[in-house]
Every structure is written in structure tokens, then in C-alpha cells.
């Protein structure tokens, strides 16, 4: 089980590379420009079954999006800190 941190937008190849690494029970959090993934309609199709997806609320709102536009749960900085503390293995 790992926490994968995606910082780059969908336009950057590394982002897709990271999503393909995710295994079931992994968590992926989108931060910085990575939050742009949160409005993608087929986002769930980019990862394997059983991978949990989150986006960082502050980064999402800062980029002018409405919370309702997100296709995945938004978590705040505190929630992100909890994720980091809980997951021993981090891929970023």
C-alpha cells in the first residue's frame, strides 16, 4: 500500500506514468497542477480498480475551480497530513 503524490498536470507525461504505477489499495493525491485531473470525466479509467483518488482542496480552489466541479473527494491540508502519516511508503 502506497501514497502516490501527483504534482504535474495531465499534460505532463510523468503524471500518467505515476498513475500507471498505482496498485489496488494505493491512494493517489493530486496536488499543485495535478489537481486539474480532478475535473477529468474519465479519471477513474486511468487507474486500476481499488485505487483511491483525492485532490487537495486549497490547490483546487486556488486555481479557480468550484468544489462541485471535482469528480473525486477533496481533502484539505490537514487531511493530506493524515494521509502522509498513515502511509509508510510514498512515491512522489
Amino acid at each position, binding site marked *: 500500500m*502506497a501514497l502516490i503524490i501527483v504534482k504535474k498536470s495531465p499534460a505532463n507525461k510523468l503524471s500518467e506514468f505515476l498513475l*500507471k*504505477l*498505482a496498485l489496488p489499495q494505493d491512494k493517489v493525491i493530486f496536488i499543485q497542477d495535478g489537481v486539474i485531473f480532478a475535473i477529468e470525466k474519465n479519471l477513474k479509467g486511468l487507474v486500476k480498480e481499488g485505487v483511491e483518488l483525492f485532490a487537495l482542496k486549497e490547490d483546487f480552489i486556488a486555481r479557480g475551480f468550484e468544489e462541485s466541479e471535482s469528480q473525486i473527494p477533496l481533502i484539505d491540508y490537514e487531511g493530506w497530513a493524515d494521509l502522509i502519516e498513515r502511509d509508510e*511508503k510514498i*512515491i*512522489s
Partner: protein
Amino acid sequence: MKKVLFAVYNSPVGSIWINEALRSAFGMYGEDLEPVVLFVNEAVLAVRKQCKPEIIGCLPLSITFKYLEKYNTQVYAIKEDLEKYSIKENEIEPHWNLKTIIKEELPDFVHSFDKVVFF
């Protein structure tokens, strides 16, 4: 002993990312950490004998070879990316002692490390 993977995805010429990744990897030997290096996307260009960033004034890659040998640092490259850039076996610089890995094996390979850092 914990294992750390340094995955380089930036091109070896025009930025210092690959030198920084190797420098960080060598720094692990002072701790109880075993580093492994992985070249992804354009970073695989680094393994070619003719890849010489010093030609345009960047840091040479060859300065790392004696440490790769001394510490027996494992260096991997993604097979499909080597093929994408038409890098043939006989073009690969022997000092890298390069191992290859196919994309299909990457998720398990990456998850076998305690920490993974992308450069």
C-alpha cells in the same frame, strides 16, 4: 536496510536533474539506505556512450562512473523507452552496468522500495 529508488525522468542534457539524482543516491551510503537509480522517458538517453552533456558546458555524466563502480550502484532503464529512442545494446556505456525493466513489471518493482523520489 531501507531501499530508496531515485527515478529520473528529465533529459540528461540541459538540466542538472540527473546529476542531482546520482549525487543524492551516493549520499545514501552514509546512512542505512540502499539506493537504486531508474531512468525513465528521456532520461534513458543518458546511457548512450555518445551522450556527453559537457559538449554544451553541462556537468559530464562520466564523473559518476567511478562511484557507480565503487558502490556497485544498480542502474535500471525502461526497455520500451530504450527502444523508443532506438538505443541499441552496443551503444550503451558499459560503466552504467545497466539493467533493463519492462513497463509491465514497474508497479511491483516501484512498490518494492521504501521511498521513491522522482527527479
